């Protein structure tokens, strides 16, 4: 079965070994009311390194050094540390740029073209990740939109933009050291 979106996604993985970009995350309630929840920037360097910086309306960071994923919130003074292979629900970056190939962690289905994008549906093989499905819209060889519906009629939409390949990053880009006063909890 032809799946143009999945083919585009595999080409994206091949073509972009390191890149930066911007995101905007919206929540859409059951009644179709859309509010912008947060926005920021991301970076990744395969295999396995990524960072997802929420900048507005608050600061929040998810960063993976390839071994562990740190979820840090300065307001909550909290850093949760998970092994990379248990972080699929930690941020969109884990799905899009994580080391675990999309086909390994998800069952992939083709969806009809919509809004000018080619779509695929990814259903996590790990059911308890709190996520039942993720739709990924591809445009011009890059992921442009994620749609995550949950069983309460809530949809989260994440728009990605200005994805630019990078040759390399400084060594501390994907390192994280919690500021003093932060509770660091390692979760197996």
């Amino acid at each position, binding site marked *: 079965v032809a799946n143009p979106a999945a083919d585009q996604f595999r080409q994206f993985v091949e073509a972009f070994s390191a890149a930066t970009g911007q995101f905007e995350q919206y929540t859409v309630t059951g009644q179709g009311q859309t509010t912008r929840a947060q926005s920021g920037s991301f970076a990744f360097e395969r295999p396995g390194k990524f960072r997802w910086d929420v900048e507005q309306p608050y600061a*929040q960071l*998810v960063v993976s050094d390839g071994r562990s994923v740190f979820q840090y919130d300065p307001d*909550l003074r909290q850093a949760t540390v998970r092994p990379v292979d248990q972080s699929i629900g930690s941020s969109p970056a884990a799905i899009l740029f994580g080391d675990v190939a999309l086909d390994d962690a998800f069952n992939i289905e083709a969806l009809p073209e919509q809004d000018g994008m080619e779509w695929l549906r990814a259903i996590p093989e790990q059911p308890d990740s709190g996520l*039942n499905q993720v739709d990924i819209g591809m445009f011009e060889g890059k992921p442009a939109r994620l749609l*995550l519906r949950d069983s309460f009629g809530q949809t989260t939409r994440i728009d990605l933009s200005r994805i630019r390949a990078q040759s390399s990053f400084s060594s501390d880009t994907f390192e994280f050291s919690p500021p003093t006063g932060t509770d660091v*909890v390692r979760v197996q």
Partner: protein
Amino acid sequence: CASHPEPGFVSQFERSGRFVAQVVASGEPAESVQGGFRWRQAEYGWQLDLLGPLGNTLARLDASPGVVVLQRPGNETRSAPTASALVADLFGAQVPVDALADWLRGHIQDDARVQNVQYDEQGRVVSLRQDGWQVRFDRYDGAGPRLMEISGVELGRTVILRMVVDSAHVSGSSREDGHGPASTVS
């Protein structure tokens, strides 16, 4: 699939933001869940949604007089007289979630279990103890504290729940912004 109908009530007091629930016990793997929350309160009840980092609903609590219903994707619906009995599933301890109806407004429940209440210079509650839980309020706006910490030890487990409010809606006026004072309660 919501067995409990989406509450038609017009919520009079809404707070949404981020939370972390941290459970640390010796001899057990630590647990720490970070995500978003949405609190909607009406005259006779309230609804609390706990959301994952991707915006997916992890759990929904619906409280009406005498009964609280807990819905979690992939689990069957459960109900109990109080929310704290139900959240033991989520947080591994009976965190006093029922008191949020007062605490999110900076109010204290008027009964003997509330002890050592401390106030700031403007007479607002900044900390209290209740049923073995230490509660701290901070960053007040016109409608209540925007930062709250509830911590306690239960069955050998240290449980900390922190909540920070990002957007507030009080009936009659709505304020969707990051930091900074929300509109005063009309």
